[in-house]
């Protein structure tokens, strides 16, 4: 039952999230804004369109959007969604989660190089570089959670609070910050990247897909939306207590997801994108917070 509901949520909520972000940005800009269903309509419109493909490209360029999309959907099977349940709940799911996303990313990077455009090469180069900072921090977070809870799946997030004693709230707050920076980086949001800018030179993810069109572009946008939804779900898994009843928990989950969308929209409205050299420093904050978590966990387990 909950699994079915989760699949339904997985299909619809990602687009709604993007819609809520757009609506929030419109609100802060004093505009009325488009309907929150607009991203879904955009997607459906893209699915009807024909595509233009560069003469320079090979099969890689055509395969990458599909592989990127399917890898994100596959990764979604392992993430705890509503009611804290993942569709497939096994130990070490986060390793599969992280590496299958890497698989999709690998192909989107070489597809960008496949076009022979320096814009897209530039985007790919930045994307590859930021990933190297994100992943280790994520794994340190997972290792710390595993140490606290003795559990090796995402379920360990639920047990942080009861096992961490006086530091529980602090650790969860730091973990939320870590995952939020990961979200901003991986999903190319302000202040790491500006998805709506008109200047290709300043973009990261958006510039990699300049040449995609039609169905391929549709799959990429859907994949990107699901990826953002997954990272929001991870944050939700951190903050929702395990003691809630199933239906309350689902309601709280949805509230948190949309709250995060509002926060992302507010962040985007209130600040500008960082200069590229500062982006590194910003993403490094994630390593710092995960190290702090590790320090607190070490102190909790071995100290005093």
């Amino acid at each position, binding site marked *: 039952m909950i699994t079915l509901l989760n699949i339904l949520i997985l299909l619809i909520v990602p687009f709604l999230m993007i819609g809520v972000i757009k609506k929030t940005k419109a609100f802060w800009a004093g505009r009325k804004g488009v309907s929150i269903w607009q991203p879904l309509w955009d997607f459906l419109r893209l699915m009807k369109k024909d*595509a233009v493909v*560069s003469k320079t490209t090979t099969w890689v360029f055509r395969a990458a959007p*599909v592989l990127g999309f399917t890898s994100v959907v596959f990764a979604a099977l392992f993430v705890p969604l509503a009611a804290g349940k993942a569709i497939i709940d096994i130990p070490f799911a986060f390793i599969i989660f992280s590496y299958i996303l890497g698989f999709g990313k690998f192909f989107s990077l070489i597809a960008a190089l496949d076009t*022979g*455009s320096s814009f*897209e090469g530039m985007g790919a*180069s930045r994307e590859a570089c930021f990933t190297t900072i994100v992943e*280790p921090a994520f794994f340190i977070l997972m290792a710390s959670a*595993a140490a606290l809870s003795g559990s090796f799946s995402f379920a360990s997030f639920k047990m942080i609070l009861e096992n961490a004693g006086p530091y529980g709230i602090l650790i969860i707050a730091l973990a939320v910050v870590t995952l939020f920076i990961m979200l901003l980086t991986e999903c190319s949001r302000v202040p790491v990247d500006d998805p709506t800018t008109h200047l290709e030179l300043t973009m990261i993810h958006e510039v990699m897909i300049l040449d995609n069109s039609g169905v391929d572009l549709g799959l990429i946008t859907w994949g990107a939306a699901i990826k953002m939804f997954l990272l929001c779900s991870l944050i939700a898994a951190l903050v929702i207590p395990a003691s809630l009843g199933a239906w309350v928990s689902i309601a709280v989950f949805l509230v948190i997801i949309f709250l995060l969308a509002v926060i992302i929209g507010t962040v985007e409205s209130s600040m500008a994108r960082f200069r*590229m050299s500062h982006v590194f420093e910003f993403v490094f904050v994630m390593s710092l917070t995960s190290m702090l978590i590790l320090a607190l966990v070490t102190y909790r387990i071995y100290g005093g």
Partner: protein
Amino acid sequence: MEIYFLALGTLLAGALLSVIVKDSLKLKVCSLFSFLSAVMLFLPAAAVILTDTPLRADVYMSPLLGNVSFIIDPLSAFFVIVISFMSFLGMLYANGYMKPYLDKGMNTASHCLFLMFLIASMIMVVTVQNALFFLIVWEIMSLSSFFLVIFEGEKKEVLSAGIKYLVYMHLSVIFIIAAFVLLNIHSTSLTFDDFAASVQGNAFLSNLVFFLAFVGFGIKAGFVPFHNWLPDAHPAAPTHVSAVMSGVMIKTGIYGILRMLYITGTPGKGISYLVLVIAVISALYGVLYAITQHDIKRLLAYHSIENIGIIGIGIGIGMLGLAYHHPIVALLGFTGGILHILNHSIFKELLFFAAGSAYMKTKTRNIELLGGLGKAMPYTALMFIIGSVAICGLPPFNGFISEFMIYAGMFLGIPHSDISLFLTLVFAIAALALVGTMAILCFTKASGIMFLGEPRSAAAAEVKDDVSRIMIIPMAILAFLCFFIGMFPQYFAGFVIAPASLFVNGESAMPVFRSIVSMCENLSWFFLIFLVFTAMVFLLRILLKKKIASHTTWGCGYDKANNHMQYTASSYASPFISTLKPLFKRVSHIKKPKDLFPKDAYYEQEIEDIEEAYIVKPLIKWDEKILSKFERIQSGNIQQYILYGLVFLVLAIIGMIWLG
């Protein structure tokens, strides 16, 4: 066991036969005989792994050596299969790769001979149980690979790389001999069994011996800081030789480490930490420098260092598991490490073959001059991309399985550990994650710049067709293996658990064994779901029947972009390298424009290995300074040298009498 000697005989017969047949047949003869020996070796080795009963044979060699015993236990059997099969594929590839050299009329007789010697000596290295005979075949292996490296010895850089390799190999032998001599003094025997019996309970000796052996075999394997020969030797050697060396031969170093671990028994905590730390440093260092390289074979050589590091992390975790009495952690570490040996030999050969094919067609190893090869060489490009995905450890390919096991071992070690183990494990986990993502950066660079986009030079633009079938076939076999092991790891888990369980107490490991296999079965199902789902989406896209128009790449309205406007390998790696500036030593070569009408000017920047720049070179300088003092005794007069020898002998005899 007879079949083992028959296989060795086949290899040597092939070597001798290749000398007498005419040039165009030499490699074919070698391929045939190495195939036969691979089949012959596979049968007993597979039987050993499946039944878990070692084979043994004693052969009387000479009065000095006495009876030399050859044993195929699960560890040896694993290595025998990897060595014989991978070497055969290398030989097969050589048939196509050596053709231009044969057409030029180069003599390949010695090349074929040494290739066969290399295979035979590697197989003996992993089976022989006698220290002295081990050293003999070890030396044959090093020397034959030296002659293979200097195949194009008329080029200065090839020869100097070869000599560097030779020097490193002999440094390696010194440490191995030291370890064996210690064991020999203690046990007054030369067999590994007696070694093992004699060090039991002697923690100091076993740690010391293991440390010496780790340094010695580590030089062969290419652990940092002993890795320096690798990035020079691989580009110098012909491609199939670098593939066999990188894919198989450096693994004999790992074999040596594992064998010495088996001899010295349960390791101490200190030495286990040391192995893990060195391995983590190797993995990080290797991939870090791989990112900076533009010579594809140098890049792959640095990746060998990285992967040896990952194998070492597996072994280090296994050793820590033993030292802390966590059989689960130990078994997962060893299983992951040993499986990664197999995996690395598969995808590294695949990558070397594909890179060699590109080199054969374009005559350049500099990836900045390549690009767009994917159109003219679709199969090679596909193979390189599959190899790249596999080496990055991405599912559903084989690299993921071994890394997954190593991760699992590390995570399972986290609860119930003391603080130092806990922090070490967490940082090793972070390091492995970092290595994985840096590998993605490096291999998207390599495959994207080499095979995709537009040609960056005339050499790349002139390529019209793919390489011959004889070169594609070995690549296809390897690519299939990458995929097959990734998809169905449960069949291979059993294959590597047999050697891994040599190190871990059998009974406590059995439930773990079952859980590893069931974990692999789960992975297999998940990846099947992934494949079916991906196929469905592809099908859906085809069924949507959208028109595809063809146009130039989007350039903000500008459609006269040329190939020099593409992103290059340097620019691709630049944000990453500039973030980690202090870790690299940049060497710039500048010729500034002069006069009113400047003619030639250039700026070139390369990144030097800091270990070489700050450790090896100063050491050599210091060495030269001291040794130059001895120049005066070097007269060039043979009689004088004989006198030195005589004096040394007399002194040695006096010394022996004096010491009793």
